[in-house]
């Protein structure tokens, strides 16, 4: 059995818009905060994994933190960059190749929707030129089909967004901190129907960092280490319904989220019912609803009732995205998956203030999904 790995330091530069700071500066602030939380210096870090989509090479952080000669691996896995960095850092500690590892991400995106270039994704130019290569279209098309197959209505799309902004209002570090009425969301501008303006997260800026070490020595550095029971990344199979697909195979296959989730539960030796607090990728309301079932937390179609009955609220049986998720925090691609992990650590440490889930949560879960079909799942334990 490989040794357990613990998170002993967390650091976040709040997501949002920060006109006077570069993306890298926000990453450096987050990394220094994580090192301080762990009580170690940068010179002690044996290996680092980091990613940024639009704000330069992550290893340029060494120019800020110090040129210590450590191996620093740049990670580029779309929205799953943070999850991939973390899984790599965990593997490095498990293999014994470093005593302390860092996973860090930051970003600073232009305003408005992402505009990927087809050739970067192995796709022909016409796919972008004729207006078919938009992530928002994919989320809408997958949501529309899912609603049709499983009896989900627009009511659920509104409720997910409403809860995100309600939780964001309780989170001093959230970007969107204003609660929104049901009508304000339901009547907002159609972006890609059935998804509307306030059902989509926005590209943003921010930084997030974690410090990890072997679990057996973790208490020397932090009084409340969080054990990484599983950190799994999976990519798409032939036949799964993924972003940037000019066609879908006749026979469908499960999403990478399904395979990542199953592998993570198996690694951790626990099941969905054991999880006390969770983060699910909420690029948009529809995605979160689909991800509830793809990660095994409910049956397909059951989301409608769970949302209506308040079961996914902070005080509910299945508290989802307690910090407001991507919807209230925005999505700096490089940092987003690590923000999820930081929120679960904060909840398991019982330091989440007004948004703290009640009782003594023991197990948390994070799930990130990114183009062109990558999912990262972690299971974390107090």
């Amino acid at each position, binding site marked *: 059995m490989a040794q357990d790995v613990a998170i002993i330091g967390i650091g976040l530069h709040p997501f949002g818009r920060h006109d006077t700071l570069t993306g890298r500066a926000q990453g450096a602030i987050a990394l220094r905060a994580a090192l301080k939380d762990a009580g170690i210096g940068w010179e002690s870090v044996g290996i680092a994994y980091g990613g940024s989509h639009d704000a330069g090479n992550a290893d340029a952080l060494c120019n800020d933190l110090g040129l210590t000669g450590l191996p620093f691996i740049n990670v580029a896995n779309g929205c799953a960059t943070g999850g991939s960095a973390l899984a790599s850092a965990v593997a490095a500690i498990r293999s014994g190749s470093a005593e302390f590892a860092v996973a860090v991400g930051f970003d600073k995106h232009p305003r*408005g929707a992402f*505009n990927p270039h087809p050739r970067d994704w192995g796709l022909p130019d016409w796919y972008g*030129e*004729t207006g*078919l290569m938009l992530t928002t*279209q994919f989320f809408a*098309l997958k949501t529309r*089909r899912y609603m049709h197959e499983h009896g989900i209505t627009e009511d659920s799309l509104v409720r997910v967004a409403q809860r995100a902004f309600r939780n964001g209002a309780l989170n001093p570090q959230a970007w969107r901190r204003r609660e929104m009425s049901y009508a304000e969301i339901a009547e907002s501008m159609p972006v890609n129907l059935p998804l509307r303006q306030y059902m989509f997260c926005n590209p943003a800026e921010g930084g997030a960092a974690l410090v990890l070490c072997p679990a057996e020595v973790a208490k020397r550095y932090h009084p409340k280490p969080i054990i990484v029971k599983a950190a799994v990344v999976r990519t798409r199979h*032939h036949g799964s319904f993924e972003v940037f697909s000019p*066609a879908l195979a006749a026979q469908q296959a499960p999403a990478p989220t399904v395979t990542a989730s199953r592998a993570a539960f198996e690694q951790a030796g626990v099941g969905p019912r054991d999880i006390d607090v969770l983060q699910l990728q909420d690029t948009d309301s529809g995605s979160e609803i689909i991800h509830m079932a793809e990660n095994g937390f409910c049956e397909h179609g059951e989301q409608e009732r769970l949302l209506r009955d308040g079961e996914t609220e902070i005080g509910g049986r299945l508290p989802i995205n307690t910090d407001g998720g991507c919807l209230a925090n925005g999505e700096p691609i490089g940092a987003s998956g690590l923000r999820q992990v930081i929120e679960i650590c904060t909840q398991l440490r019982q330091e989440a203030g007004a948004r703290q889930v009640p009782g003594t949560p023991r197990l948390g879960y994070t799930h990130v999904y990114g183009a062109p079909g990558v999912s990262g799942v972690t299971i974390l334990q107090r």
Partner: protein
Amino acid sequence: MPHPVLASPDLIRFEGDTPHLVGSRCDECGELYFPATDSCTRCTATRMSPHDLGRRGTLWSWTIQGFLPKAPYDSGETPETFRPYGVGYVQMESGLKVESRLTVADETQLQIGMPLELTLIPYRTTGDGEVFTFAFRPSASA
């Protein structure tokens, strides 16, 4: 009648004036692809043949593009002249679902399962005239 100028001529085969979508079929396992590829992501074979995917299907999922996409979208529209357009996955007779523009952008006129047929629509005007791309329009039967 001369055929219209296409954004990508490789995607279309004409039977007379009637356009058909062209993809590829794996010589080993028979899996279909659109656009045509030179390897099979299902069985990893690398021998593929061109395949006529036909021109009829049913609407499998849809959305309406409500904002002007950034580049590489090159319709030449501005935020002021942009008109929302329909996008859907169309399930062809083989079961393959092809992502396509729709001629309809009115949510009251779109329903999963409705029969559709292939057409060509102008999506861009250059100095030399209009450039066409493939799209699906409502039809009487599947």
